[in-house]
Structures are given as C-alpha cells and as structure tokens.
C-alpha cells in the first residue's frame, strides 16, 4: 500500500516503528515521486530548524526570576502567619489588654471625661484664707511670681485635699473684675487627652460643665483647671496671666 503524506512526515520525524519504517522505505525505493516528496519534507524540516530565529530573552528571564523570588517571599510570610496564627492572635490580644490596662491605670494621663470627676470628687482636708509661708512658696512657684502677675486677682480662700483617685488637689477661689473663678490644681498629671484644643495654642484645652467653662492646661506635672462662667478666650487670657512663664 502506498504510504500517505503523513507516513512520509512521520518517517522524517522518526515517529514510525522499525517495521513501519521498513515498509515505507521499501515503497520509497519503488516510487521516484514519493522519494522526491520525502526529500522535500526532510529539507523543509531541516531548513525550518536551522533558520528559526533565536530570540533574546534576558529581560524576560530577569522578570521571571524576580517574580519567583516574590512568590517565595509571599509564601514565607503566608507560611509564618499560618503556622503562628494563634500565637499572633494571642500576642495582639495580650497587647490590647495590657495597653488598655496601662492606659486605664496610667497616673499621668487624664482623659477629658475624667476631668469633671476629678474636680467633683475633691474632698477638702483644710481650708484657709491666708497662705502659710510654705503655701506662699508653692503658689509663687506655681503662679510664677504671683505677687506681680496676679495682682489684679484676689484670692478669697483655698482648700487643700485630694480626690477619689488619691491625687493631691488644691482648690483656689479667685475673684477679679469679671467675678468669681475656681482654679483646681491636680498633682501627678502629665497630659490631658480628649478635650477640645482652644484657639491656636495647643496647651490650652476647653470644656463645659453646665453654664461654666473650664480651661485646662498642664504645668510642672500638675493639671490646672480654671473654671468660671465666662467665654473660653477670656479664661485663656487669665490662665496666661496666672502662668506667664508658660508663654
């Protein structure tokens, strides 16, 4: 049986079995046209393999290698996270708990919500209308030469005591031309969070308690809370007069 064109190509490609090859080769020897066609197949095959272009692929190779590295890196992270998922969750949870406890128990950070409670829980241990020498020294240090800077503000009386946090407090009842003011000094406070910053000076924060306005600021480890029925700006001006060294 005469070989088909496919048989010739299969022979040229070495895809025929030994027996099939023998049959086709035998047929080729009997048919010149078939032999010529077989030769054409061989020449075309050789020509294509020899003349096909060799493309430069260096850039594509570099991109591939970088991509494989990236895959490994991603897998490494995935693997670590998967293997330690419970541990990581535990660490995050513990951090949240510890952070919350620290925040709650921190003696030096006071939230805006605590300010009102601090002020309202004040318990006086002693009251007076005149400074003892020690108190005068304290007030001078606090008010920064109070004799000069507070000369238009009258001290009516003051109380020394503590609030229910156990913080030492002093409460000064002051008066000037505008009326009465209360200044609370709470020791052991380094920052006040959560109150509104008043004006352009971030040191002064304001809040309202009923009709009254409170201006809060921190000086030398104490929170100073100035409260009166006035607008916040005028209270800030008084606060700057009380503590001129802060400006």
């Amino acid at each position, binding site marked *: 049986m005469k070989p*088909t*064109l*496919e048989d*010739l*190509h*299969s022979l040229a*490609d070495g*895809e025929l079995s030994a027996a099939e090859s023998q049959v086709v080769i035998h047929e080729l020897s009997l048919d010149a*046209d078939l032999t010529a*066609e077989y*030769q*054409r*197949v061989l*020449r*075309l*095959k050789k*020509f*294509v*393999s020899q*003349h*096909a*272009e*060799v*493309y430069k*692929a260096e850039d*594509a*190779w570099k*991109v*591939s*290698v970088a*991509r*494989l*590295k990236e*895959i*490994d890196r991603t*897998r*490494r992270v995935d*693997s670590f996270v998967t293997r330690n998922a419970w541990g990581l969750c535990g660490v995050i949870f513990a951090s949240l708990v510890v952070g919350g406890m620290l925040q709650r128990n921190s003696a030096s950070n006071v939230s805006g919500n605590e300010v009102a409670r601090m002020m309202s829980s004040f318990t006086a241990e002693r009251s007076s209308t005149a400074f003892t020498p020690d108190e005068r020294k304290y007030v001078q240090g606090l008010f920064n030469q109070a004799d000069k800077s507070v000369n238009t503000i009258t001290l009516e009386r003051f109380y020394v005591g503590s609030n229910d946090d156990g913080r030492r407090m002093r409460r000064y009842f002051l008066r000037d031309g505008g009326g009465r003011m209360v200044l609370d000094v709470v020791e052991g406070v380094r920052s006040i969070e959560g109150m509104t910053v008043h004006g352009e000076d971030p040191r002064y924060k304001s809040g309202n308690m009923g009709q009254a306005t409170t201006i809060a600021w921190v000086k030398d480890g104490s929170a100073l809370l100035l409260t009166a029925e006035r607008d916040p700006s005028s209270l800030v001006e008084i606060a700057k007069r009380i503590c001129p060294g802060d400006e």
Partner: protein
Amino acid sequence: MLFGRRDKRDAFERQAERVFPSIYGTALRLCRSREEAEDLVQEAMVRAYEAYDRFDGSNFKAWILRIVTNLYINRYRQRQRGPQLGSLDDENASEPVGLEGEIPDRLLFDEALGTEVEAALARVPDDFRTAVLLSDIEGLSYQEIADATQVPIGTVRSRIARGRALLRKELETYALKEGLIKASDLDPG
C-alpha cells in the same frame, strides 16, 4: 523548610534558564505579540514553579512547553482568536499538497532568511503552526505535542503534515511576492 524552598527554586531556575529561549520563542510564535508573549511566559513560569513538585524529572523542556501551550490554548488564544480558514480542517490534512507547480527547493531555500521563515510560520493557522513549531523548532515528539495541545496523536500527525505543506506554500508566496524567485521557476512536474 526555608532552605528546602530555596533549593527547589534554585533547581527550577537552573532547568528553566537552560530552556528559557525555547519557552520565550514558543510563546512569541504562538501569540505573535511581544506583550502577550511576555505575559504568557510569566504566567507559565509561575504555573510551572508551583507545579514543579509534580514534575516527573524526565524532559523538562517538553513539560514546560506543555504548560506554555496549554495556557495559550486555554486562555490567550480565546482572547485573540481571529477567523480560522475553513478549508484547513484536519479532515483534509492527509491529502498531499503542493506536489504540482512547486518551486524547486534549491531556489526557495537558498533565498529565504530566518525572518522570512518566521513571517511565513506566522501566517500558518494556529493549530498547524503550533504542531510544526513544537516539532521542527523545539524538537518535541508527537506524543509530547499531543500532550501539549490536548489532541490525539493521529491529529498531531495530520497537523504536522498539513502545517509543513502550508508553510512551504507561504514561503513560496513570500518569495514570489518579494521577487526572490519568478513564476517561471515553478517546477512543472
């Protein structure tokens, strides 16, 4: 674990680097677009790397070209598929073509250059081109081509025979058009 993965990547890269020009060339010849070929190569490399544990260790080049071809057939070709020539189905593939009026090889092959081979190959319809390039340029066996193109081995035989005949016609047409040969050079018999 980490060292194992690094070793695996090193082994993969060593083998892939050796055959990378074939991977890239095959992708270019399949897609006929540099941009798409580069996408195809990158995707095939990632697929191959992820499946490297399942590579049986026999013929890396055939294995990775199978991935390239499968990906091209399943994804890229659907995207870029143009109209196929209706007369080129496999049923006619066993019929000899170009035996009459053919240009003698000495004229045709002496004049043609590599770029012309690539241009002629690019004009051969997809299925036939894939079979010819995997066989004649990449040296894959019929079985390996059948695996790569997901068709029976008999279809591969047909496509190679038909594809080479078409390629030869394209080379002749190109040579005539470019004036490399004349119509009078046609072999009368």
